[in-house]
C-alpha cells in the first residue's frame, strides 16, 4: 500500500501516459480524451480517487494513529514555543549586554530573565508529556498486523485489508459504470490510478523491504514513508497541506464529506464489488484523511540558531561553556550508520518481549532535563556574576538537593549596576555561550523528536533524516535471489535491518524492477518501451471497462506473492505458517 506522495506521482504518470497505448484505436482514444478532460477539470476529485485506499484505511481504523499524531503535533507546537521564547530571551539579553548603558537595557535583561524562568517550567512540562506520548507510541500498535498472518478468516478482516486484498479491480470497473457526472468520472479515474499504483508500487516496496506488508509491517511502513518523502522531494508532488485543501470537500458547507454524486457512485460500486459487506463510513474516512494530511505538515524544524555576537564571546577561548554534555548517555539511539556507511546498531532495547524500539525519545528526555538544569544553573550564575562573584556549579548543585522553594540567590530583577557587572567580558561571554548552547540543544531536541517520530512510522523523514542509511536503504532496489523473506521474530526491535530470515515457500517472483532502481522506476515518467508500472495496468483496466471484456483480474494491491499476483487465500485446512503455503488463487467473483 502506497503513501500520499507515491499515489499523486503515479496519478501524474498515468494522466500523461495513459493515452500512449491507444494511438491506433480512435474509439478508445476518444473515450480517454473525455475521461482525461473530466479528470483535468475535476482534478480535486481525481486526487481524492487516487488515495481512495488511504481513505478506506482511515474510515475503518480505530483512530489510534491519528490520535498519536495529534498528540505529537501538540507537543511539537509546545516545543516550538519554548524554542522561540528562548530565542527571544537570548536576543534580549545579548542586546542588553552589548549596550548595558542603553535606556532599555535593564528592561531587556529583566524581561529575558523572566522568560528564561518560563522556559524552564515549559521544559519540565514538555518532558512529562513526552513520557506519556512515548509510552503510547513505543508498542507501535498504530502499525497494524495483517489478519492473514494470524490465519484470521477473510470475513473477519477490516476494510483496509479487504480493499487491498479482494475484488478491487471489480470496484474500480464498477465506479466507471456508475459514474453519472464528470466529477464522479474524475474520481473513478483517480481510483483507477490508485489501484494501478498499488499493484506496481507495492511490488517496489516489497522488493526493498524484503517481503510484503503482511510479513514485514514495520519495515513496510518505513519504506512507504521513505519512498513518499523521496518522491515529494524529487518529483515535486504537492505538500500534504495542499492535498488536504484539495480533497476537503464540504458538500453542505460545514463538515467534510464526499460530494453526493461521488458518494452515490461509491455506494453502488461497493455494492457490486462486495455485496455481502457493509461499506465503510466514507465521510469519516475523508475527514480523518484531511486531518492526517494537515498534521503531517506540522513538524517543521525551527531555523538553526545563529552564533553569538563575536564581540561578546571574545573573552572566552575555544568553546568554554557551563553546559556541554561531555559524556555519552547510554540511552542515545544507536541505529543509523557505522563507519562503513552500513545500517548498524539497534533501534531499541527489548523489554520482556514488548516492543520498545525508540530509545531516541529517552535521549530527548535527557536533553529536556539538561535544558532545565542548564537554565537553572545559568540563572544562578547570573546572580553570582551580577554581584561580581565567581560562579561555581558545585555550589549550585550542593544547594539543590531536595529543595522545592525558590532559591533566594536567583535574580528576579537585575539593577543597572548588576547589569554592568554582567556585561563584563568575562561574564558576558559565558552567558551568551550558555544561552547559545541551550538553544542548540533544543534544536537537537527537535531533531531527536523528529527522528523518533520518523522511526516510529508516524511522520515522513525530512531532508535531514532521509540522508540516513536507515531510510536510504529503501530508495534503491537490491538484488534479491529469493523472495519473500519470512517474518522476523525480532522485527519490533530490528526492523531497520534487512530480514535475516529464509524465503517463504513457495518462493515468488518479486518485482519486475532491476536492481539499483530508485522509486522513479514505478512513479516516474513512463514510456511504452517499459513493460511494467502503473500505466500499462491502468490501460488494461480501461480497455476492459470500454469493451466490456471479461479479461480482467483482481490483483493483490500489496503485491503479496509478487508483482501482478491475483488475490489469493490459504486453502481450507491449511495455515499461513505452513512450511509451504497452500496458495489458492481466487476467482474474479470470489469475495
Amino acid at each position, binding site marked *: 500500500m502506497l503513501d500520499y506522495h507515491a499515489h499523486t506521482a503515479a496519478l501524474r504518470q498515468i494522466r500523461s501516459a495513459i493515452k500512449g497505448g491507444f494511438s491506433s484505436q480512435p474509439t478508445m482514444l476518444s473515450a480517454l480524451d473525455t475521461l482525461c478532460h473530466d479528470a483535468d477539470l475535476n482534478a480535486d476529485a481525481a486526487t481524492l480517487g487516487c488515495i481512495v485506499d488511504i481513505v478506506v484505511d482511515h474510515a475503518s481504523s480505530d483512530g489510534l494513529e491519528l490520535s498519536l499524531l495529534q498528540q505529537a503535533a501538540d507537543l511539537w507546537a509546545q516545543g516550538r514555543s519554548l524554542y522561540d521564547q528562548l530565542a527571544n530571551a537570548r536576543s534580549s539579553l545579548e542586546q542588553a549586554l552589548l549596550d548595558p548603558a542603553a535606556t532599555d537595557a535593564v528592561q531587556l535583561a529583566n524581561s529575558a530573565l523572566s522568560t528564561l*524562568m518560563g522556559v*524552564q*517550567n515549559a521544559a*519540565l512540562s514538555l518532558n512529562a508529556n513526552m513520557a506519556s506520548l512515548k509510552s503510547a507510541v513505543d508498542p507501535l500498535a498504530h502499525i497494524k498486523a495483517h489478519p492473514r498472518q494470524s490465519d484470521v478468516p477473510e470475513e473477519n478482516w477490516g476494510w483496509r485489508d479487504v480493499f487491498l486484498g479482494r475484488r478491487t479491480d471489480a470496484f474500480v470497473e464498477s465506479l466507471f459504470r456508475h459514474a453519472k457526472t464528470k466529477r464522479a468520472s474524475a474520481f473513478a479515474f483517480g481510483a483507477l490510478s490508485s489501484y494501478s499504483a498499488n499493484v506496481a508500487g507495492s511490488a517496489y516496496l516489497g522488493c526493498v523491504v524484503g517481503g510484503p506488508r503482511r510479513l514485514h509491517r514495520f519495515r513496510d511502513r518505513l519504506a512507504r514513508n521513505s519512498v513518499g518523502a523521496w518522491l515529494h522531494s524529487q518529483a515535486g508532488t504537492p505538500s500534504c497541506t495542499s492535498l488536504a485543501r484539495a480533497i476537503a470537500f464540504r458538500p453542505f458547507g460545514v463538515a467534510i464529506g464526499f460530494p453526493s454524486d461521488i458518494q452515490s457512485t461509491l455506494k453502488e460500486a461497493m455494492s457490486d464489488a462486495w455485496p455481502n459487506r457493509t461499506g465503510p463510513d466514507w465521510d469519516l474516512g475523508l475527514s480523518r484523511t484531511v486531518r492526517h494530511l494537515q498534521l503531517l505538515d506540522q513538524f517543521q524544524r525551527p531555523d*538553526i*540558531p*545563529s*552564533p553569538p555576537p563575536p564581540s561578546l*564571546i*571574545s573573552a572566552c*577561548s*575555544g*568553546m*568554554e561553556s*557551563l*553546559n*556541554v*554534555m*561531555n*559524556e*555519552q*548517555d547510554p540511552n*542515545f*539511539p*544507536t*541505529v*543509523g550508520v*557505522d*563507519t562503513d*556507511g552500513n545500517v548498524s*546498531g539497534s533501534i531499541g532495547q527489548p523489554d520482556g518481549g514488548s516492543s520498545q524500539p525508540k530509545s*531516541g525519545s529517552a*535521549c530527548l528526555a*535527557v536533553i529536556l*532535563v*539538561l535544558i532545565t*538544569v*542548564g537554565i*537553572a544553573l545559568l540563572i544562578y550564575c547570573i546572580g553570582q556574576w551580577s554581584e561580581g562573584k565567581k560562579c561555581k*556549579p558545585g555550589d549550585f548543585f550542593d544547594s*539543590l*538537593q*531536595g*529543595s522545592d522553594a*525558590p*532559591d533566594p540567590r*536567583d535574580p528576579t530583577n537585575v539593577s543597572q549596576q548588576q547589569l554592568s557587572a554582567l556585561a563584563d567580558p568575562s561574564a558576558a561571554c559565558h552567558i551568551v555561550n550558555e544561552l*547559545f548552547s541551550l538553544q*542548540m*540543544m533544543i534544536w*537537537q531536541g527537535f*531533531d*531527536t523528536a523528529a*527522528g523518533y517520530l520518523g522511526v516510529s512510522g508516524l511522520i515522513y523523514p525530512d531532508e*535531514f533524516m532521509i*540522508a*540516513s*542509511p*536507515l*531510510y536510504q536503504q529503501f530508495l534503491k532496489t537490491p538484488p534479491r535471489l529469493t523472495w519473500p523473506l519470512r517474518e522476523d521474530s525480532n522485527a519490533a526491535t530490528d526492523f531497520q535491518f534487512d530480514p535475516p530470515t529464509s524465503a517463504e515457500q513457495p518462493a515468488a517472483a518479486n518485482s519486475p524492477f532491476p536492481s539499483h532502481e530508485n522509486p522513479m522506476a514505478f512513479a516516474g515518467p513512463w514510456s511504452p518501451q517499459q513493460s511494467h508500472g502503473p500505466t500499462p495496468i491502468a490501460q488494461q483496466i480501461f480497455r476492459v471497462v470500454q469493451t466490456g471484456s471479461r479479461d480482467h483480474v483482481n490483483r493483490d494491491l500489496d503485491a503479496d506473492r509478487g508483482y501482478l499476483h491475483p488475490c489469493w487465500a490459504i486453502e481450507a485446512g491449511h495455515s499461513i505458517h505452513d512450511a509451504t503455503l497452500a496458495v489458492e488463487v481466487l476467482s474474479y467473483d470470489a469475495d
Partner: protein
Amino acid sequence: MTLINATFVETAARLMARTSRNTQDDHDRNVDAGTYLVIPYFPNDVGRPANERPLGPGVVSWLCPSIVVNDVPGENNFKRGEETRVTVDIGNYGAGTLTAPVYLKVWWSDPSAGFTTLNLFGQTTLAIPNGTVRRSMELVGVIPTSAPAHVCLLAQVWSPLDVGGSPLPDPMNDRHWAQLNINDLNVDAGQTIQFMFWVGNPSTQADEWEVSVANVSEETHEVVQRMRRSSHTPSAIHELHLHDPRDLEAAVATFLRPRSTVVLKLAGGERRPLVLTGRAPDAFARGSMAMLEITSAPARRGQPHTGSIGLIIQPRH
C-alpha cells in the same frame, strides 16, 4: 522556581561535569555516539582514537584539505586588509539517525606550533546529518594589516551531543580541530632563509617543549602536490637551525653548529618566538620545491606532537 528532584540533579551534574583538555577518556571514544564530528584530513577520515587520531606520519598535519581559502585548496592565499573567504568541510559520523546542529569557528593566529593566542576570523552554524560530510557556507573576514605576513588558520567544531573536544587547539589529536598552518616562501638559490614563528604552551602547567624542524618526506611531497594540483621536483633545505631571536649567542651558533631541535621551558600559557634559519640549495631551479615541517611536543618521551607548521619554499622567479 520548581526544582527537579535529586536523582535528575545528580544525573545532570554528572553529565555536565567538564572533562575537557584531552583526557584519556576523550581519546577512548568510539563512533557509537549520537554525534561524532570530524574535520577530515583525508578521505574516509572518521577521527577515531587510535585509528585516525592522533594524525599519523602519512598525514600532513599542517595542511587540512577541508579548510579552503579563497577557493584555492592547499594554500593560505590571503591578503592582509582584504576580504578573505574560507569554507570548511565537516563530517558527522554519529551512529544514530540524528542530524547535528554544528557550530563552526575559524580562528587566525600568528604562525605557531602550540597556540596560545587566537583571533576569531568567522563563525557559523549548520546542520549535518549523521553519516555525511557537509561544506560550511563561506565565512568572509578580513585578516588585518597589523597581522604578520604569515598566519595560521584553525577551524573548530562543536555540537551539543558530541562528547569530548578540547577548548584549546589540538589539531594533531582532536578531531574537532584542524589547521591550515602553511607558509609559502620564495628564495634565491643558495640564499639563507629565515622564518620567525611562535612556540606556545597551551596548557596551564609549566612544561618543557621540544621543537624540531626537518625536511619532509617524499610521501608528504606527493600529498601536497595532490592537494595543490601541482607538480614539482622535491628539494631540501640545508643547515637547518632553530634559535631564540633574543639570544645573540645562539644566533652566532647558527654558523658553527646548526641544531634542528631545541627544548624550551614554557610556563602555562606562555609563548616564545623562535627563528628558523636554513640555506636553499645551490641548485634550486624553477619547478623545485622544498618543504619543511616544524613540530612541537612535550619533551617527555613518547608524547605525541601537539603543534606543527609547514613551510613551502620555492625558487624566486
